[in-house]
């Protein structure tokens, strides 16, 4: 409860300071400790992968929690796939096929991407899915998904269209 109160006060103070119109989503960003580091444990940059693969999320000097939890210095992961656009710091991170949310506090997932080059990047979001200030993003990892291996085995046959 104290955390809630604290947050509301901070939010209010910043709002008042900026004289922003009190719009629907004009709320302050949550502060993140300056030594916090967000990173992708796996896969590695430049890795070539066949088939589905796990993605493991790493976070130092902050805690992972579920969305909606306003405890200071905690957040939840968002995985951005092939996103080129800049992230809007004042808006909740979008949710769509390229922005996956892990609002239950997940720290890994499994992906299946079409063959070709792809980028992966993590962004830590606060209780309201907004980026922290300073924004916590991982290094953008580029991976190459290889086409599925076709191999003919003895004693088997495969029907083709």
């Amino acid at each position, binding site marked *: 409860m104290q955390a*809630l109160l604290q947050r*509301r006060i901070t939010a209010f103070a910043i709002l008042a300071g900026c004289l922003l119109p*009190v*719009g*629907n*989503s*004009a*709320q302050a960003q949550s502060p993140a400790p300056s030594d916090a580091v967000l990173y992708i444990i796996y896969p590695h940059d430049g890795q070539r992968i066949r*088939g*589905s693969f796990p993605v493991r999320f790493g976070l130092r000097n902050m805690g*992972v*929690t*579920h*969305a*909606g*939890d*306003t405890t200071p210095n905690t957040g939840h992961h968002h*995985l951005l796939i092939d996103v080129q656009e800049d992230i809007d710091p004042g*808006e*909740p991170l*979008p*949710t*769509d*096929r390229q922005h*996956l*949310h*892990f*609002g*239950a*506090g*997940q*720290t*890994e*997932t*499994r*992906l*299946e991407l079409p063959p070709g080059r792809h980028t992966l990047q993590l962004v830590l979001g606060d*209780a*309201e*899915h907004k980026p922290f200030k300073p924004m916590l993003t991982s290094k953008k990892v580029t991976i190459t998904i290889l086409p*599925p*291996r*076709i*191999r*003919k*085995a*003895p*004693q*088997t*046959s*495969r*029907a*083709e*269209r």
Partner: protein
Amino acid sequence: MPGESTSHVAGSQRRLAAILAADIAGYSRLMGNDEEGTLVRLKRHRREIVEPTLQEHYGRLVKTTGDGFLAMFDSPLEAVRCAIVIQQSMAARNTSLPPDQWIRYRIGVNLGDVIVDPDDVYGEGVNIAARLENLADPGGVLISGGVYEQIKNKLVCGYQSMGDEKLKNITDPVRIYRVLPDPASVARAARHHWIWVSSGAAALLILGGVGWSIMKPEPSVGGRQVSMAERPAAGPPGAMPAEPSQTDSSSAGGGSTAASLPGMPPTPPASGSALPIPIQPIPPSAGPGSKTPPSVVAAIPPPAKPGETSSGSTFRDCQGCPELVRIAGGSFRMGSDEDSSEKPLRLVQVAAFAIGRYPVTVAEWNQCVAAKACADVARGDNDDPVRNLSWLDAQQYAGWLAQSTGIPYRLPSEAEWEYAARAGSSSRYWWGEKMAPKMANCKGCGDPYDTHAPLKVGSLSPNPFGLADVSGGVAQWVADCWHPTYQGAPTDGSAWAEPNCREHVLRGGSWRNDASYARSASRSHYDTGVRYPAHGLRIARSL
């Protein structure tokens, strides 16, 4: 009923048919562990998976035995497709359970000359199917050489030859093939044959790949659970609407609804031990040119003309209740070919129902807040759509409304939502194939548009059924649990529910998504217990 449209019931006659025999592996062990529970689940699977899948594939259920069933098909291709769909659906159901509670079918399919009675079939053709079933691994499908010859060039699957086998009490040896739904697994199966033999679980988990997630994020084992801690409202709730509804018992009702709802499930699906391998989706009816039995075609209503049917008339059950649109029942082609999540395209029947003309508004939501049955999360003006809701929030509102009015309000099923949103159309959007100005509230879809918030409800043109805001605005929670494809989905318009469902379905896309998400068939999903500012709801009820 498509199965009954084939006329093989007159007297005892011989005919060529594909026979599918199935039974449950370890049935007596399951019954020994938990007799009543197993029976309940068995019956549910029969009702929700076996019977609809048979029907989809134009099969006829000949009879059920204690732990299995016998079905016949005109087409061996349909029979094998049906077997695969049943196995994949069962695998998906099992993933949330401990292995000792798994119900797994063994299935055999044979093509043969059989004697057909009104309520049974006889002959060596049936016996061979039964023997194949006996030899199959739990979760596996074996077919005879005759079936293989018919389907090998038509069904893209892996087929692994098991050689000729002398079956008990069958004169000639029978060539047997194992069906591997994923062609890529052929090589694997051949290289690691022992895996298949020694562990049916591996096969099952691979099959489960389709039923479970391909693209879906899977939570880590260490993922924390969502508590339903309330969040502070961002601003003062909008002015209360004029008439607070009659809600004496409402808070208790709403509370109990919430309490009985499953939160985040404690057991994640077994994900560490096996990789979800992509499986070629096998649509039960391949493409638009595929056959449809005449009896079903006749059930499709003529293109919707709201003036002629009762569809489109609006009403309100109480003052302050959301305005509803009456939707006449019918059937429609649900889904599309544009995204894997929207396949396979299939015919779905929907009974008459009523659905909100608009998404639930802030004013409507705040009545529930005032009754202390809903969380105080609404921001914005009275006629803004309520948003920042989790599925549990949406469910709570429906429960409160039902409790306080005595009318069976609920979330719409995904099928009902799409049926109402399409309003008789089969195009990408209800107005046609292309995005048009002043039709949808989405990113890049034209003015009016505000990047920070959705438009007020009813700002854009309603569809022919009278529903507004089905394209963009707030994405709307529906009753269904998220499944990555429609493989195995019900076709009777009911919601596809799962116990302890981790993610539910949202329809319509939001104002923050682009035009492709505003299509009638577009589906998205989100964690059941997590709120997001672009997520709202539309209410429904049966008539």
